[in-house]
């Protein structure tokens, strides 16, 4: 099986560039760190599916340990890792998966097909002009987490 090395971004300019250069395609940005086990599992799925979705999606990894990336970590309210944020034509795409946070996907995907389905639904919704889409996955495949507001 071919593994495509996904670009790892460590600077804000790189993130800006990839957002601005991805036109009419879904941009998948994974925020995480390579030392995390869940992150590695997610990265494996992303790498394997990147080629399959290459016609309508671009995947990139963002290292949250980098200082320059912290502004985006704050802006996107990323508190749990790994988190995946979706963009389309520089517009953020929300995903309603029944969890508390619709702005991103938190955790890993169960399998490759789940990731492809999610990206496909986002792409279809974006092409129809929808900025929020419903997650096609069954609840058991969606990672659960507790979202805290300022530790409350």
């Amino acid at each position: 099986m071919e593994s495509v090395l996904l670009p790892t971004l460590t600077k804000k300019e790189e993130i800006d560039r990839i957002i601005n250069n991805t036109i009419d395609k879904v941009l998948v940005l994974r925020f995480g760190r390579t030392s995390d086990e869940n992150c590695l599992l997610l990265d494996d799925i992303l790498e394997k599916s990147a080629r399959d979705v290459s016609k309508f999606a671009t995947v990139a990894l963002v290292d949250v340990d980098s200082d320059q990336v912290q502004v985006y970590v704050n802006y996107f309210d990323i508190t749990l890792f790994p988190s995946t944020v979706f963009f389309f034509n520089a517009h953020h795409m929300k995903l309603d998966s029944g969890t508390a946070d619709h702005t991103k996907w938190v955790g890993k995907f169960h399998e490759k097909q789940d990731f492809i389905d999610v990206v496909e639904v986002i792409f279809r919704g974006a092409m129809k002009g929808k900025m929020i889409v419903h997650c096609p996955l069954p609840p058991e495949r969606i990672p659960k987490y507790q979202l805290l507001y300022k530790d409350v």
Partner: protein
Amino acid sequence: MEEKKTKAKKKPSKKSEFELCKVCRFHHDQGPRHKYFPRHKELLSAFLNRFRSKIADVRFFLKNPSFLRPQEESQNRVWCVFCDEDIVELGSSFACSKAINHFASSEHHKNVKQFLWKHGPSMDCADDFKISDADVAKWVRKCTALGNKDASSCRGQLSSDIHNNKLEFERTEKVQTHYINPNDLNDVKPLLYNTNEYQISHSGVTHYGSHLNLDASHLPPGVIGMTSNSSSLYGDSTGNVHTGAPPPWLNPNGGNIYNQSDITKVQEKLPAKTSKLNPHRVGAAWAERRKIEMEMEKRGLAVNINTDADWLPNFGRVWQSGTRKDSRKEFEKEKRKLVVTAESISMESEERKLVKTESISVESGEPVQIQPYVSKRARPKNLSGEEVKTGFRLEDLRRG
């Protein structure tokens, strides 16, 4: 009295005769009620929109009169749905001249009113399908000005090619009767259009399309289309394919058509692919702009400096309600507060350093109160029981 009541009761159930609805294209017996039915209303709006677009084309030529080439006459025809007649631009020198005159005529206005009264619930849109006399007068003035300008610039030119020959004959207004055998006119009738008053009144005139039917020996090479006020687009001295002149796009002086800005050039190239994409997709306008920018950057025409350090994408934050712009503003406010608190903390830490060493020198420029050293345990705490920190959310702790 009872009979009258029963008659009155019966009236609503009385069905009218079957009649054809031109808009819906079927027969119905609903009578005048039919025009209020939703399906009819929908079809009517579609029907009127189609005709509106045709009128818009005619209005374009009303504002920008241009010459009508004989070979385009057959294409320049309009069917008036209100009057049920075809308006063909036979022998017109200017594009849509007959159509303009028709739409300005009182008969057409009357037919529009009648149509809308019969088919449409409202008469508001009647003016969309009419052309006012004032507009027609302006158009006539523009046409005469155009005609005079063209005639004066091109008189007296001679060249050997077919089209320019035709032009000369038209402009000098000579009836080339010696080229046409009058006997032939009686025998040969053109197939492309009907003989009508126009044909009979202009004896000795042959239509452009009828050259195939006439004896070639009596005709000069090419076809002569004779109209008294005609002039053609070949009036300029630029030449054409037959004279071997260079095409306009290779003209070193630059034809006006190709003297566009870079953006429009690029835009012409792009539509092939972008027209297939949904124009209502998310970020469509941004995508189009960005494509043009990238194309220009590729060509090296414009270097787009998109390296604003404060740029943030469109994002809807988790704990913010309201629009995405509000989210961004909130974030920028927080960032500014952060910067301010960071500065104040850096100042405090410097002060503490100064207090520790018990030096009086002030780097911040503000007056410092000299205080004795206070240990961490003895330091005052805030309400939450924590020491005054950097101001970040406690989520920072989770990221360890």
